[in-house]
């Protein structure tokens, strides 16, 4: 089956290693993956800023580029939520776009949802699991639920199931793992102080869990949490996308 990979603008710009980790997982699953080069952004910044026209245009652009694939996969709960849960409303006044979107929508997946719910993964395939060339995080990890992934897409157990099966990794839950980290897209720019206070609490829960890595599925949360941990002087807690954890392509930790 062919999978269209929606890289998402933040992964594209900020942390390409997540994209390659995702590709490794999808290829290990036997998917033929394509990355349409003309993709830009799912339109969520415009949608959440009230600029409906731009959001609609970008939604149509996404539809044009991805409807030819058997499945569309994104390594982000937030962009996944936008594409899978909100485009319908943007197309509501256009019967033709609505029809095309209705055909695509059931084939849009957040990566962990795709691996577990669609492909039926309960564990990593041996090819990945036993690849000696992969350097994989070892130790205690805690998982932060991203708001959109959790509440718009129902991503909760899927990444946990995959992480829990990793040799050498202990998954230990932190308090309030479902509580927002305070990112909220432009919220973190417009109300930096409030956002900082919220993420500070999250950092406290991470520290209290005793984990050496916080694992998550959304680049927004990732930048926010990593940014705050480092500002607090925590240079040792790793902040990893769960796909990086699984595919073993995590970047080397920062030097203090």
């Amino acid at each position, binding site marked *: 089956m062919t999978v269209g990979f929606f890289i998402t603008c933040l992964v594209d710009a900020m942390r390409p290693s997540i994209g390659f980790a995702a590709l490794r997982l999808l290829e290990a699953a036997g998917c033929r993956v394509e990355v349409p080069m003309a993709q830009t952004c799912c339109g969520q910044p415009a949608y959440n*800023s009230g600029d409906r026209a731009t959001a609609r245009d970008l939604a149509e652009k996404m539809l044009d580029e991805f409807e030819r694939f058997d499945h569309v996969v994104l390594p982000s709960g937030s962009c996944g939520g936008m594409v899978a849960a909100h485009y319908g409303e943007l197309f509501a006044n256009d019967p033709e776009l609505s029809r095309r979107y209705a055909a695509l929508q059931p084939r849009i997946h957040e990566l962990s949802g795709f691996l577990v719910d669609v492909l039926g993964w309960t564990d990593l395939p041996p090819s990945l699991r036993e690849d000696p060339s992969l350097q994989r995080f070892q130790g205690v990890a805690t998982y932060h639920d991203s708001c959109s992934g959790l509440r718009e897409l129902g991503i909760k157990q899927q990444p946990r199931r995959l992480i829990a099966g990793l040799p050498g990794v202990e998954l230990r839950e932190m308090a309030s793992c479902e509580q927002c980290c305070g990112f909220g897209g432009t*919220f973190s720019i417009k*109300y*930096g102080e409030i*956002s900082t206070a919220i*993420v500070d609490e999250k950092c406290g829960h991470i520290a209290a869990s005793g984990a050496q890595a916080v694992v998550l599925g959304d680049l927004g949360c990732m930048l*926010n949490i990593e940014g705050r941990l*480092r*500002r607090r002087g925590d240079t040792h807690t790793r902040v990893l996308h769960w796909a990086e954890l699984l595919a073993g392509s995590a970047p080397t930790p*920062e030097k203090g």
Partner: protein
Amino acid sequence: MQVQAMHFKARAGQRLADVRLQQNLKKLAGKFVTARAVAMDELGDFEIIRTEAVRRRDAALAQLDGWLEAFEAEASRRGTTVLWAETPQEASALVVEIARRHQVQRATKTKSMVSEEMALNAALEAVGVQVTETDLGEYILQINDYEPPSHIIAPVVHKDRQQVAELFRREHDRERSEGWENDIAGMAREAREVLRERFLAADMGITGGNFVIAETGSVALVTNEGNEGLCTVLPRVHVAITGIEKVLPTLDDLATVMRLLPRSATGQVISNYFSLLTGPRAPGETDGPEHNYVILLDGGRTGLIGGEFQDMLRCIKCGACMNHCPVYQKIGGHSYGWVYPGPMGSVLTPSYVGLEKTLDLPHAATLCGQCQVVCPMKIPLPELLRKLRERQFDRGLRPRGERALLAAWGWLARRPALYRLASRVGVRLLAALAPDGRLHKLPGAGGWTVGRDLPVPTGRTFRDLYRARRDAQGG
């Protein structure tokens, strides 16, 4: 109450810097959030009851005028005078007129957020009526020079017992024994002793109305302190004030909604006190007021009917959305600048007082969605906030710089070749700016770097690297 929502950012900043307040706000998560979760878990079929409650509220709102008329007819038949007010000012004037007609000198009052909309206490005091707030939280705020409530069900959640003790020491003239300020029950008793005299001396009792029931012409009131009973049974005159959206057709509807209200609000299975008041004292009855009024306030509510924001009218004012809101938990209710704080307030305040006076409120949320998850009335709060943002955008109400940035980004995102070039240049620039892998200060990114370092990219975009890899593999 004066609208202060334009000062949201400054107020929020002050609240964040207030160490004591931050400590006090932790009660929310510790108390209300946990208690609600336990109560809903014990209820078992929250989703089923919730769906049924929403259905019944929607049915009432679908024929709001009809049910209100039915309520008026039945309440009138039972001797209640039903009055209508289009604006909060009109509603206040009606209460003042009632006080004058019955020569009222002293009034007692239960907690009522609608009366905050009306600035009722000031209106009554202006004509010489002494008003006493009898909800303990509201009483504490009243003796603190009418500080506004910071929560719709727990008005002094922002204060701790030492702060209350300081107030009591200042306002209550009495002997104090050692350690009295640590005895919460003792402080409550002290307030009760002051309030008891006020209850007994009052000519008029003023209450809100959690619901009004068309079938019986009754007003339903929920409290935990029993003050609603003392405000409605003791004085000669009882005035209930509520919004027009609070009508329920039948007692059966009330029973359904009441299964969710206390559980959502405080995690209680039932509230300590619940009154269903139907008409004034009838001949031969031993208690109840001689005169009974119900004032139904529009105050902008009809403006929501039939429009994008109608779902908001289902709200039963339980406060669950604010208790669970990560933003409210950090800045408290006063930051929002009007009667209703938190996510529900961020929708209601712009709707009632005007979008141009509340520029921050629709944006003062992370859209995390937890408010919608816990709302017993399934109000899609994030979606409503987004719709308000759309209205702001369409009316050009956001700051010019923000609009320009958004427009530039939107232009670029529609042009893939340029977008790719821009992101390629952008990530290299960022990488060059921060050789140690993170930016400590980023001009133009507003508040991002006030509390965070920005982890920066390594210098090439995924798409560039992917293309390079593909080319290499393809030979």
